[in-house]
C-alpha cells in the first residue's frame, strides 16, 4: 500500500512510501508498520494525524484497496 507524507514526516519517509501490509487494515496497524521501519522517528498519533481519502480519521479507521492514506506532520500554520 502506498502511503503519502506531509511536512517533516516526508523528510524521514520520503513523499511516498510503500508498506507491505494486507488490506483491509486499520490506520493504526499501518502506523505501527511504518514506525517499525523508522523507530527513530515519531509517528505517534498525537504528532502525526492520519487522513484517508482526504478526511482526517482515527486509528481505528479501516483502509481498503484503492483508498489513499496520508500522514500529516503537525501543521506550521499560515
Amino acid at each position, binding site marked *: 500500500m502506498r502511503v503519502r507524507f506531509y511536512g517533516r514526516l516526508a523528510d524521514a519517509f520520503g513523499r511516498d512510501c510503500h508498506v507491505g501490509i494486507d488490506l483491509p487494515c486499520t490506520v493504526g496497524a499501518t502506523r505501527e508498520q511504518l514506525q517499525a521501519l523508522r523507530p527513530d522517528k515519531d509517528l505517534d498519533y498525537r504528532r502525526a494525524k492520519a487522513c484517508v481519502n482526504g478526511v482526517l480519521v482515527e486509528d481505528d479507521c479501516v483502509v481498503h484497496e484503492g483508498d489513499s492514506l496520508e500522514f*500529516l506532520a503537525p501543521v506550521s500554520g499560515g
Partner: protein
Amino acid sequence: MSVERETAALVGASAGAGAIVTFVGIARASSKSGEQVDRLVLEDHPSLTRQSLDEIAAAAVARFDVSAIRIAHRTGTIPAGEPIVFAGAAAPHRREAFEAVDYLMDRLKTEAVFWKREEGPGGSRWIEPTDADHAAKERW
C-alpha cells in the same frame, strides 16, 4: 497572489460597509534566532488546506458583525520580503473589522493546514507555531 487584487475584491464585496481592514503577512528575512532566511517554502494539502481556510473564514463570519471576509494565501517558494497571506474584513463599523482580521490571523497562524520551511545559508528548518501564536489564539 496580488494584494491589490484581493483588496479590490474585498471592496467589491463590501456594499454598505463603513470599514474595511486588511492585513498582509510578509516573509521575514531572518528567523526568530536571527539567522538569515532567503525564502519560505509552504506546502499545502490538496483538500485540507482549503477546508481549513474556509472553516476559519466561516467562523469569523459567524462570530463578528461583518459583511465580507477574504483570505488569500500563497504556497510554494516565497522569497523573503514578499507577501505570504492576505486577510481582510468589511463591517459596518471599524471595531468589528479590526477584531475579525485579528481573529483570522490568530487562527491562521496555528490551524491553517500548511507546512512551512525557512531556507537560507544556514540550511533548512521546519517551522511550528510558537507559544505566543497558541496564546494569541486562546484569546478568542
